[in-house]
């Protein structure tokens, strides 16, 4: 391996060096500073005679006397089942004082795209125990479903609740097959979050014993920003290995994707690229897709990779490029709503703009319950109606509204108070969630339930509730 002391330019996170051999695009580089510190980087552009290198740890300490070594390979993640229970830094090196990791394989972190022909469509219901999700925006195995939040909101609590409670209700018949091979694992990738936030997760993992079946990657707020572009790739390479080679059902939590995107922007700016919207690189869609698309199921493999990326929307604005591009790639999104949070709802999920695109195939008879789809459609419609009326009622007062409109208002209130606000420690199974849903829609007269099949109304509608309501609102 050749060493060069040929650095010609240092600019932000980038270093340019002259070379006299062919260097491959994306190749890994080690830079040794005059102080003897070793920094790692990656080839961003390779031309005859000169390469541009992006340095993960930042370029401070590098001068023209630093020596540059090209490792002749692209970045790899050493993978093994023994990673479970370990805590690593953002570049995959252990920081928990545990034993050295003996890899079974070393895998390229820029994962190749899954052939769409080889995918299996995800349709296996994951019960998170959270009604706002299970009932209204169901998560399935192999889905990528981000949490859209903003600073200061309890998105971590929600993510932890999901990680703690997530399970797949057993089906009779095929449980043997599932029990043996497939275990559940959590991979947690922190990118630029604070020590405090990280501690919350770690404590929760330790308290619940989840750490044993977890791999934690930590790039904290004071760790190098450029490293953040590598962390999620390390995480996902590990996830794919555990899922598709070791049959685990892997839940990946990535937080905070906003910090990841900021790092992308920083590199783009240093390279003097033509910026896209709000200064983010024009290729950010493609870059994010290369992460998010690494969720899924593969035909003939037992395991699955389910992703819950968390992002904080700058200015709580979902048209900002980070949530916008994410929403265009992921299979739905869960909104954490500051207003609901200040009203004390736990979790403060606003179901209306939230969406799970894989829900339709993941629910229904044999999966959740036959009435699920109709019931959630009705709840969406009724809650939206109630929400609309709230504005109006502020102007004209309740008396000016019809009986039915008043029922919609009551529905919206109870929907938030009972259905959504379940607490971060309550675990509701799908039956409970759906039954509660029926209790709420039964506040409305039967013929207002135009989204629900008459058969289900027959079976589940609470007759007396609605009578009672009528009596109540009459006096």
């Amino acid at each position, binding site marked *: 391996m050749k060493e060069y002391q040929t650095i010609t330019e240092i600019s932000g996170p980038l270093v340019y060096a002259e070379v006299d051999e*062919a*260097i*491959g*695009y*994306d190749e890994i580089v080690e830079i040794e500073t005059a102080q003897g510190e070793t920094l790692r980087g990656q080839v961003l*552009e*390779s*031309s*005859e005679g000169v390469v541009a290198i992006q340095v993960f740890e930042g370029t401070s300490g590098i001068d023209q006397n630093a020596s540059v070594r090209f490792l002749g*390979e*692209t970045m790899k993640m050493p993978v093994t089942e023994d990673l479970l229970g370990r805590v690593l830094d953002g570049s995959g090196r252990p920081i928990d004082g545990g034993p050295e990791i003996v890899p079974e394989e070393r895998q*390229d972190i*820029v994962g*190749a*795209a*899954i*052939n*769409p*022909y*080889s*995918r299996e469509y995800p349709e296996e219901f994951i019960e998170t125990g959270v009604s706002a999700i299970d009932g209204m925006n169901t998560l399935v195995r192999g889905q990528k479903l981000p949490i859209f939040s903003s600073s200061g909101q309890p998105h971590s609590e929600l993510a932890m609740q999901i990680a703690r409670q997530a399970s797949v209700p057993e089906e009779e018949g095929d449980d043997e097959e599932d029990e043996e091979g497939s275990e559940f694992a959590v991979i947690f990738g922190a990118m630029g979050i604070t020590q405090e936030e990280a501690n919350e997760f770690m404590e929760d993992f330790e308290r619940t014993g989840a750490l044993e079946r977890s791999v934690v990657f930590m790039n904290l707020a004071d760790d190098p920003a450029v490293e953040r572009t590598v962390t999620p790739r390390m995480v996902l390479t590990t996830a794919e290995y555990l899922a598709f080679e070791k049959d685990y059902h892997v839940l990946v939590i990535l937080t905070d994707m906003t910090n990841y995107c900021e790092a992308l922007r920083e590199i783009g700016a240093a390279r003097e*690229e*033509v*910026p*896209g*919207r709000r200064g983010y690189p*024009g*290729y950010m*869609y*493609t870059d994010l*897709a*290369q992460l998010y*698309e*690494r969720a899924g199921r593969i*035909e003939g493999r037992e395991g699955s990779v389910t992703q819950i990326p968390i992002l904080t929307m700058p200015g709580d604005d979902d*048209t900002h*490029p980070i949530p*916008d591009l994410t*929403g*265009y*790639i992921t299979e*739905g999104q869960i909104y954490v709503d500051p207003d609901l949070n200040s009203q004390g709802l736990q979790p403060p999920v606003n179901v209306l*703009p939230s969406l799970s*695109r*894989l829900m*339709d195939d993941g629910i229904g008879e044999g999966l959740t319950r036959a009435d699920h*789809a109709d019931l959630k*459609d009705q709840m*969406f*419609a009724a809650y939206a*109606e109630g929400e609309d009326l709230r504005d*109006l009622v502020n*102007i*004209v007062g309740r008396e*000016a*509204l*019809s009986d039915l*409109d008043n029922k919609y208002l009551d529905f919206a209130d109870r929907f938030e108070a009972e259905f959504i606000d379940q607490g971060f420690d309550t675990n509701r199974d799908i039956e409970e969630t759906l039954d509660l849903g029926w209790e709420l829609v039964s506040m409305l007269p039967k*013929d207002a339930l*135009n989204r629900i099949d008459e058969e289900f109304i027959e079976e589940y509608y609470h007759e007396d509730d609605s009578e009672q309501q009528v009596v109540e609102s009459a006096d």
Partner: protein
Amino acid sequence: MSKAESTETTVEDGVIQSVSGPVVSARDLDARMNDVVYVGDEGLMGEVIEIEGNITTVQVYEETSGVGPGEPVENTGEPLSVDLGPGMLDAIYDGVQRPLDVLEGKMESPYLDRGVDAPGIDLEKEWEFEPTVEVGDEVGRGDVVGVVEETVTIDHKVMVPPDALEEGETTEVTAIEAGSFDVTETVAELANGTDVSMHQEWPVREARPTVEKRTPRQPLVSGQRILDGLFPIAKGGTAAIPGPFGSGKTVTQHQLAKYADADIIVYVGCGERGNEMTEVIEDFPELEDPANGNPLMARTSLIANTSNMPVAARESCIYTGITIAEYYRDMGYDVALMADSTSRWAEAMREISSRLEEMPGEEGYPAYLAARLAQFYERAGYFENVNGTEGSVSAIGAVSPPGGDFSEPVTQNTLRIVKTFWALDADLAERRHFPSINWNESYSLYKDQLDPWFEEHVEEDWAEKRQWAVDILDEETELQEIVQLVGKDALPDDQQLTLEVARYLREAYLQQNAFHPVDTFCPPEKTYLMLTTIETFHDEAFDALEAGVPVEDIVDTEAAPRINRIGVQEDYEEYIEDLKSAIADELRSLY
């Protein structure tokens, strides 16, 4: 060049000078613009996109990690082309027409490896060829010489290549025979020396020739009420579906692919999700073609270049798709092409352009964005083909505007070209009003030229009924503004009643659940009858109001809410007949 051909035509090798993502520059390469080249030791497929002096710039259709300066670049001397012939239906391709099922086998992995190539159609598979001309017959360019049964649904016409003869020129068939042939074998010989096989190649960036474009006068019936009923697209027409994420672009495109009454569907997944393509691959073989009950896949060709696949192949997938569509059009078929999403295509152009350091236009898109969009949609149309048949390509493009803001360049440039605009609306999607097509903003410029067809094939007052519905919806929009300020009860009775009628239009007629086994497809007859049911309610209700019945009593009847269930009725005719008389009886009994 197409992959069916060997690479022996290689011209002269060049040497890589620099690599930056999908863009590679080479020195000393003797090449023309758009030539296909093989890059690096692994032979990654690429296309020449810029030549400046001794430096040739190539966009590479595969990942370039690890490729470095000094590696060779080999020119094939041929432009990027597709293989045309039987076997394109019931197939799934990437953006440069590599069959993904074949790649899976060759790579022995569910991941897409690099440097593996495969022809677009199976070169060894034998097809039963049935001649339709005889020795001694005169044929011209594009003429059909025989057919093979490509799938249960589609007879694939074997045609004289359009470049084998001049326009208007004919030549004699000197040999032709029925039998079993693979696509490379000659099935007919012509006097001018042309050997006709089932296989043709065509450069993707060039439209296949036609005689002329005609005014389209038949609707592409979609089975979607709001489309057929209010904003129809013609066979050979163009449409755009812009909308923010999660508003229903893909579901609408899938619905069209499933239920549109086209002969052939070409579905291009351009830079979108892998699972959405998987869904099509899993569902379509099981779903029935509404026209004949055969599996839907038998009329479908899929092109999947998902968001995580190489960006250069995303740029080319649209062209691959439309070229395949044109080929079936030449056979006299009505083809519908869906592109989801044209914004990802435009972004691929932008990404390549910025790597070339071209002067950026609006929002960083290259200055030629508008021209490329126009060229694409121009390849759609209702045509007289060179062989005298008529065929059409309808093009329906999803647009994904950043932040859902339609003022951005891709949406705006698209709207300048297409004649149907289905505007998706985030508010409607949020309240799960699906399809969330905004009826105030959307339009179809084909309406008038399609009315005669609907009047002839469905009912003669089709256009009047539509106008009636549009008027009610317009009135509702105005009334809603007042309601927002003062509440519904402050409106006069007749206006309250109009709101009630409009509510049925919105909830029963405009909404349609794509996931309900019956509601998912609504034939135009049902669309029509549904409207007349709501009109019956309207007329009876206003009669009752005039007779002095209070509006609360009219609204609080039992029969009318059953309008909301028409969509899910399989035997809708009987249901509607009963319902109409029930509505009339009940309302008349009030006075």
